[in-house]
């Protein structure tokens, strides 16, 4: 490629801080999000490191119990609300959605920029809460602990989460409207990439669930700040109502985290197996089914919270039902791999890792949905291991796979393949070593949220901390070589993977308007096998 004729793209179209802070280009906003959530991820990781250090020994010696409470609370809040929920939608969804459907931008570019500022204001409140002493209620903010008992910065954190919720809502509204109204000619609903379907389902959860957590947090804040006691038992208020409202959002929020990753896996698997997806419409429909079922299972977080046994039975059955669309996806991915000409580039390693870890996370979810078994493992490390398999093993693996897969499109540079494969292996091994022992710990009865534990649990905890160190290295390595690749990476052509999808038909990185001319779509998604990419 002739470097002298470097095309104008979204990165070099304009220069200066101002051109970034006032941009309305979905691709630049995606980069702003990428930087912000990376900082939040590192912050959340620091808390995780301290938690694992404390749990290296049975005695509570590294930190006091109060500090430990704050550590796991801040770890959860930062990782969930400020990293996982925005991770794939706000970075890759933002960047790719218009490209994938052949649009010039999202429907509401100014709202998109506003969503980033809203996120930043929310993050600022939360950081302020961290700096001035942290919160110790657990990320769940259960009342009356969060309203009357806790003497920590509940209010500042609640305000931060309340505000950040609106960034989710704005993103969700923007995605839904964009997918409905901005598709290129010929891009029918059943030609949409499954990444887009996954984001459509995610956006539905964002717009239906997030306002409920917003109002719940608002009620909590009113009670704490002004004594407007809606959950106060002294007035006849019901703290369990808080749990219902909280989980009405926070269970579907798990699907906000995992559905985009599932979309990513569908893209990566097809590309590196050179096969069209098996069961396109089933995968698309299963995303919507997960979004719908997701709203009907929140009670499985409350099997031990004085819920009526009949309600619990219904929630249990519905929770089992979520396994069906999840399994549909896993089986279809497996069938796509069958007889594919598979290559193992780093994104594929992350995607395959996702399938394995998500399957374990999903199957252990069935243990927890079973009424009798849940009483035994409720609030133990079994639960901790289960949701980390979904959120870290699933969502984060998908995120890393996506970052690698679309890195050439986002930056115009290839990442170095060898260290990327090593990091994928490190993450997979480190992750399993960290969290698999926790299943056993939980089953043996080690409760979550304690900073000290009986001595017989030490071996498994040492394994877990060792795994966490490997996992940490697995995250640091990509940070180094991805930054390195910005200057020294091989220049990427438009379609380095020979992938299908409109985003690969434009330059890497794309121009500000995405396409020289609006593309016209004449074939289904995943029209593999493609010819070898032409060398320009």
């Amino acid at each position, binding site marked *: 490629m002739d470097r002298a004729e470097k095309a104008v793209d979204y990165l070099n179209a304009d220069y200066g801080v101002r051109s970034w802070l006032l941009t309305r280009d979905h691709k630049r906003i995606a980069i702003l999000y990428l930087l912000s959530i990376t900082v939040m991820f590192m912050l959340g990781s620091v808390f995780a490191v301290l938690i694992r250090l404390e749990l290296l020994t049975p005695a509570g010696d590294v930190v006091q119990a109060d500090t430990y409470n704050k550590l796991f609370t801040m770890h959860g809040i930062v990782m969930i609300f400020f990293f996982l929920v925005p991770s794939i939608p706000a970075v890759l969804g933002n960047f790719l959605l218009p490209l994938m459907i052949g649009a010039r931008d999202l429907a509401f570019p100014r709202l998109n920029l506003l969503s980033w500022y809203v996120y930043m204001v929310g993050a600022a409140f939360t950081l302020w809460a961290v700096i001035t002493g942290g919160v110790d209620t657990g990320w769940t903010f259960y009342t009356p602990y969060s309203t009357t008992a806790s003497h920590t910065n509940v209010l500042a954190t609640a305000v931060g989460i309340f505000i950040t919720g609106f960034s989710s809502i704005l993103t969700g509204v923007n995605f839904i409207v*964009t997918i409905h109204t901005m598709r290129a000619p010929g891009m029918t609903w059943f030609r949409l990439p499954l990444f887009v379907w996954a984001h459509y389902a995610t956006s539905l959860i964002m717009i239906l669930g997030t306002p409920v957590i917003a109002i719940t947090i*608002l009620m909590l804040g009113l009670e704490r700040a002004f004594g407007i006691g809606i959950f*106060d038992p002294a007035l006849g208020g019901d703290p369990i109502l808080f749990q219902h409202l909280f989980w009405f959002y926070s269970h579907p929020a798990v699907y906000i985290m995992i559905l985009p990753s599932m979309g990513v896996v569908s893209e990566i698997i097809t590309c590196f197996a050179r096969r069209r997806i098996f069961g396109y419409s089933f995968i698309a429909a299963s995303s919507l089914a997960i979004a719908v079922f997701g709203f009907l299972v929140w009670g499985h977080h409350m099997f031990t919270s004085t819920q009526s046994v009949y309600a619990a039975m219904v929630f249990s059955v519905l929770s089992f039902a979520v396994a069906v669309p999840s399994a549909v996806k896993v089986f279809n991915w497996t069938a796509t791999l069958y007889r594919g000409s598979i290559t193992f580039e780093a994104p594929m390693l992350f995607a395959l890792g996702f399938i394995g870890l998500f399957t374990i996370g999903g199957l252990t979810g069935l243990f927890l949905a079973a009424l009798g078994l849940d009483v035994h493992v409720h609030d133990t490390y079994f639960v901790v291991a289960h949701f980390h398999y979904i959120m870290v093993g699933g969502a984060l693996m998908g995120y890393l796979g996506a970052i690698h897969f679309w890195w050439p499109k986002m930056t115009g540079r290839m990442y170095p393949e060898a260290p990327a494969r090593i990091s994928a292996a490190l993450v997979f091994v480190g992750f399993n070593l960290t969290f698999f022992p926790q299943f056993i710990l939980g089953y043996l009865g080690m409760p979550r949220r304690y900073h000290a534990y009986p001595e017989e649990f030490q071996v498994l905890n040492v394994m877990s901390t060792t795994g966490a160190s490997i996992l940490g290295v697995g995250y640091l390595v990509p940070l180094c070589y991805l930054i390195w690749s910005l200057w020294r990476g091989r220049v990427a052509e438009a379609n380095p993977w020979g992938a299908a999808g409109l985003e690969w038909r434009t330059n890497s990185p794309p121009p500000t308007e995405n396409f020289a001319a609006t593309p016209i779509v004449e074939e289904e998604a995943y029209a593999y096998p493609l010819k070898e990419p032409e060398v320009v």
Partner: protein
Amino acid sequence: MSSRTSTVAHQFDDAEQQRNASTLGIWVFLVTEIMMFGGLFTAYVLYRSSYPEAFAAASHHLNATLGAANTIVLLSSSLSMALAVRASQVGSRWGTVAGLVVTIVLGCIFLGVKGYEYASKFEENLVPGPFFDLPGAEPQSELFFSLYFAMTGLHAVHMVIGVGVLATLVVMALRRRFDADYHNPVEIGGLYWHFVDIVWIYLFPLLYLLGRH
């Protein structure tokens, strides 16, 4: 047609696509609003059914006359809003401005009356918190007033935002930004205003009228 291309943002192909997108956008946003108020309505339904006597007794301390007057004010404002939208559709600039200004004035009257009601609750020690004092009442009556302030307060915040939106529309109309071909912002502002109005249509009977003899 070419003179109108300036009102079509760069990401859209034509005015119709832009119109469809913004209309769908406001409807999707209103769905989130329904879910948001839904949390409060859920709490209300739960507590009302748990403590019907306490709630009925507490609701007697609300001024139903003022509430009814405010309902009439708000319904009238929806009429003037609808007239403003109609005027914008037929390209009547002054009709649009007049409709919007009347709507703003009615909205401010509503907020004024609401403010007076709040003030009298402070005087009567009916604001939840350390100074709440309702002699002879059950403790759940404070729960009623908690919900009263949370629900009407959130509604009032939406009213204030609505007045701001309408004021922006007035400025835009005066600057000749709308005509018979391009008036979508007025319609969107109207949909938001009607939504806020409809929320009150539920709040008024639930808080002021239910259980009253």
